[in-house]
């Protein structure tokens, strides 16, 4: 395949970036999108040019580090996948592909396509944990019965990989789907109850502090989420916050 790539290039967080155009040839439809970028980078290095920086790690859809806003959508066309799971067969020979970093004020660009998503870490630090000491005194799993529906919903919420596609797709750069998932994952389980109020209040406050936008319920996040996290988690977080604030 022959492709024209329009890629966002930016030296560092201080400089202004711009879109640059690259022509690339001999791309196999079986390559993943990241492999295609590897080919481009090898070519750039051979030509003594600066390679394009982008985030990646597991390359199997579980770490959440690959990002990229491809042709106007987070993680490109296709649903329920991360960029590393996107294949070149989704594109046609001769296509022009826009590749941009995930955009949000709370996700500043570090370089080229790499953005700083540590705002998510700080939200997690604010309450996305349970402080039960399990080392050495692990309980039998069957000792605390959990309703099947709740266990399933908690597990679904826990599949969030913190990739930030929800923020990148939201017209308001809202992080509610991520935070909703992290709040739900614990609030549905008995182990999460002790810190339930503190957790939701602290995580929402941290989310607001980081400068993410409000939720307008457009639903773009749940469509683009690689893990299919549902909008229901936002509604659950809203309920949790009301409960915590008025008790």
């Amino acid at each position, binding site marked *: 395949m022959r492709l024209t790539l*329009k890629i*966002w290039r930016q030296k560092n967080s201080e400089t202004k970036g711009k*879109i640059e155009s690259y022509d690339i040839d001999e791309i196999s439809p079986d390559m993943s999108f990241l492999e295609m970028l590897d080919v481009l980078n090898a070519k750039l290095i051979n030509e003594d040019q600066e390679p394009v920086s982008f985030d990646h790690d597991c390359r199997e859809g579980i770490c959440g580090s690959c990002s990229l*806003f491809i*042709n*106007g*959508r987070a993680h490109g066309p296709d649903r329920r996948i991360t960029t590393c799971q996107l294949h070149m067969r989704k594109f046609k020979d001769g296509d022009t592909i*826009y590749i*941009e970093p995930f*955009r*949000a*004020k*709370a996700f500043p660009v570090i370089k080229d396509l790499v953005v700083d998503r540590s705002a998510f870490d700080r939200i997690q630090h604010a309450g996305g944990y349970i402080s039960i000491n399990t080392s050495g005194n692990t309980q039998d799993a069957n000792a605390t019965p959990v309703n099947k529906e709740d266990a399933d919903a908690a597990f679904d919420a826990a599949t969030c990989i913190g990739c930030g596609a929800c923020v990148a*797709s939201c*017209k*308001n*750069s*809202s992080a*509610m789907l991520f935070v909703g998932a992290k709040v739900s994952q614990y609030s549905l389980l008995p182990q999460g109850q002790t810190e339930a109020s503190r957790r939701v*209040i602290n995580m*929402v*406050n941290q*989310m*607001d502090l980081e*400068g*993410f*936008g*409000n*939720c*307008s*319920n*457009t*639903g*773009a996040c749940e*469509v*683009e989420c690689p893990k299919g996290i*549902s*909008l*229901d988690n*936002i*509604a*659950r*977080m*809203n*309920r949790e*916050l*009301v409960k915590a*604030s*008025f008790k």
Partner: protein
Amino acid sequence: MKNFITTSIGKKFAMALSAIFLMVFLLQHFLINITSVFSADIFNFLSHFMGTNPLVQFILQPILIAGVIFHFVMGFYLEFQNRKATKYEYHKVRGGANSTWMSRNMIWSGLVILSFLILHFIDFWFPEMNHKYVEFLPEDPNRYYDELVEKFESPVRVLFYCVSFVLLSLHLLHGFSSSLKSMGTNKTYVSTVKNLSNFYAIGIPAGFCFIAVFHLLSHL
């Protein structure tokens, strides 16, 4: 702890409450207006009651005005905050791939509704206030129907009203279910009321439009 109302979720909750209040008011307003289509007497009776009842005039009316003002001021504020959170623009973005036009453009449909409301106040509310509380003209319980008919003699006004109602419909097609989600209703429930919400969002604005066109055509 920050106050609930100052959190992003609290603000949305307040926004949803004001919106639900407005939707209840709109339904009530519609039920009164639709009577003008089949009976001038019933319409006059109801309007006279609403226009002279002290509870309606001095308690409900100020609450309504405050509700409308709160809703659009909060709408502008949220829009401003959201724009601040998305300082950078994409070169290419395909919003239609994952969300509806209505949901992404609440501020624009809202602005059309606001301009409609201003005209509506100039048309009906200011003359009404002037009549009752500035010039203290004597009350004629039968004046309301004639005042209504007179306004809808202008095709331009009727057209502008109807265009605004289309935008109101778009606002509500997203807004009705959105307000429920903002208040924490879970999705299974939202989908069961989806039909009701579509019925309301299309039916009420279409009904208002029908009333305006009806009076235009029947008094040509």
